[in-house]
């Protein structure tokens, strides 16, 4: 079929990140296809220079309203690595709880408020009300629990304050943790009820596949979020975490102001599906049951399944949080003071998994404890090249579909990656030439 058309999808919010989809087709042939990111320059690294080591966390926690716990933890790990601070087991356990809370918050927001409308054919979460009010209420309840969990562990829901260099400024009490466990058990039941509802519309996820590389943290002990080695589905484990730049090879492309990244192939993917593909054997059985329900098996090469991997991780985060609370209660929660640094100078690298993928903070501190150099590698930027590669394989496969469907499928692809800009894609201005 020969036809001429263009799909130009532009982001129109005042956000720092703008992502555009540009597709021009002439006589049925693709003339131009670009995932075009025009982010304004980010100066966070420059803002960190000249700041004292104990200020770095609070600044980086403001980088992102969604991933403020993840940025805090990557920042603390980098600072502690530079200053030789060894945290206690209790701190490590509480930090794992914090990272689960954020993972749950972010995943349920993406699944429930941003992707579910696509699956049920609604324009937004409001259009889901009425026919799907019960589902929306389940999502709101789960989202609220995740918020309150981060409130309890980190001191507040938005931009945490209790996470400090060497530990916590205040720990939750045993009573509070037992109460939280009770609510997590209820949340797991609710998630089990939600899974078949999502399954009933999951057929609307495109069955597209493209082999690519997946990168994330991995560990022998657990399904990694807080700690582990960098790992790739192509090249295995890379224990030298300070050499992360050998894996995350950032580069610049002319049509985008955001950095792109590659490793063994022309692109790689990070996020829930990457973690699932690397570590699915370490999921809690209840989360594995959800994966089985959706026939999700490692290695899965369908980027649209990232949302389902998020649902699986949501369930895992609940179950692992319950286990972590049991450990804390069994050992008796202590009000510990943060461990003080023994030195002030050094270079440190902190790597964690945040909802959208692997996040790196790398600081150099001088002899007075002030930051002289900083580098942050953000997950969304690591996925841009992979989105572009997906589009190049996907468009020829769907080129005979109506323009509106092509446009929706491409938008759904971008949303599947859950980039920080995905929230605005529901408000896009779309024009056909």
């Amino acid at each position: 079929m020969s036809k001429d058309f263009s799909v130009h999808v532009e982001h129109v919010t005042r956000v720092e990140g703008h992502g555009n989809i540009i597709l021009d087709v002439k006589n049925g042939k693709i003339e131009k296809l670009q995932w075009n990111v025009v982010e304004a320059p980010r100066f966070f690294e420059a803002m960190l220079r000249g700041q004292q080591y104990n200020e770095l966390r609070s600044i980086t926690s403001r980088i992102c309203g969604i991933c403020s716990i993840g940025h805090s933890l990557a920042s603390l790990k980098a600072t502690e690595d530079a200053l030789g601070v060894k945290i206690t087991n209790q701190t490590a356990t509480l930090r794992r709880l914090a990272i689960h809370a954020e993972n749950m918050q972010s995943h349920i927001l993406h699944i429930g408020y941003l992707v579910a409308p696509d699956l049920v054919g609604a324009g937004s979460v409001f259009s889901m009300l009425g026919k799907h009010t019960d589902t929306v209420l389940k999502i709101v309840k789960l989202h609220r629990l995740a918020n309150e969990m981060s409130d309890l562990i980190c001191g507040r829901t938005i931009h945490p304050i209790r996470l400090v260099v060497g530990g916590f400024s205040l720990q939750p009490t045993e009573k509070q943790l037992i109460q939280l466990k009770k609510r997590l058990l209820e949340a797991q039941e609710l998630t089990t009820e939600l899974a078949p509802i999502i399954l009933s519309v999951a057929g609307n996820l495109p069955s597209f596949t493209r082999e690519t590389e997946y990168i994330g943290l991995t560990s022998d002990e657990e399904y990694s979020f807080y700690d582990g080695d960098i790992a790739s589905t192509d090249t295995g484990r890379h224990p030298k975490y300070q050499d992360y730049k050998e894996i995350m090879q950032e580069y610049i492309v002319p049509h985008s102001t955001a950095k792109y990244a590659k490793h063994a192939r022309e692109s790689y993917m990070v996020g829930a599906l990457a973690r699932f593909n690397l570590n699915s054997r370490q999921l809690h059985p209840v989360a594995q049951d959800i994966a089985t329900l959706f026939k999700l098996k490692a290695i899965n090469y369908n980027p649209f399944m990232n949302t389902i991997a998020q649902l699986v991780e949501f369930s895992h985060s609940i179950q692992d949080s319950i286990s972590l609370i049991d450990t804390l209660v069994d050992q008796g929660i202590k009000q510990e003071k943060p461990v003080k640094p023994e030195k002030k100078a050094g270079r440190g690298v902190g790597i964690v998994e945040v909802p959208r993928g692997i996040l790196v903070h790398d600081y150099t501190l001088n002899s007075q404890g002030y930051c002289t150099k900083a580098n942050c590698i953000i997950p969304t930027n690591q996925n841009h090249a992979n989105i572009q590669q997906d589009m190049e394989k996907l468009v020829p496969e769907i080129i005979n579909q109506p323009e509106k469907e092509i446009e929706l499928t491409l938008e759904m692809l971008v949303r599947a990656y859950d980039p920080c800009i995905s929230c605005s894609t529901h408000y896009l201005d779309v024009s056909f030439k």
Partner: protein
Amino acid sequence: MKKKIAVIGLGNPLRRDDAIGLLLLQYLQQNKKKLSKTIDFIDGGTSGMKLLHLLGDYDTVLLLDAVDFKGSPGEIKKFTVDEIKNQKIQVFLSTHEPDFLTVYALLKELDKAPTHLVIFGVQPKDISHGTRLSQELNRFLPILQKQILEEIQLMIES
């Protein structure tokens, strides 16, 4: 049962004038003895959907935020949600999440919206990346602090 009043400051301290809501909130917290009723002060930062639950917990919510209403830098304006809808002014909570009206509309649909919601918007000059206010807002800050304290005192007493 719903709690009474929350003052919520919004904004990003890494984007210059966007921090104005947070700076005004800090001032009110420091002067809370001058406010007669029990008020919860909340740093809402740049979080959009997380506010869904916070807003729903209160009868009255006063939001402090940088709002581009095409005024002069440092000008302060009081809005209700209806006024915002009519004037099509976008009030952003975050650089990454849905705008405020989206969050509010969902709350309304779920019958959880606060009975009274007032937004105090301050016209920003510069919301580029950086940690310092623009000269204009920095100059007006002491006046804005006094003004917001008086406005809230009046609202609470009435």
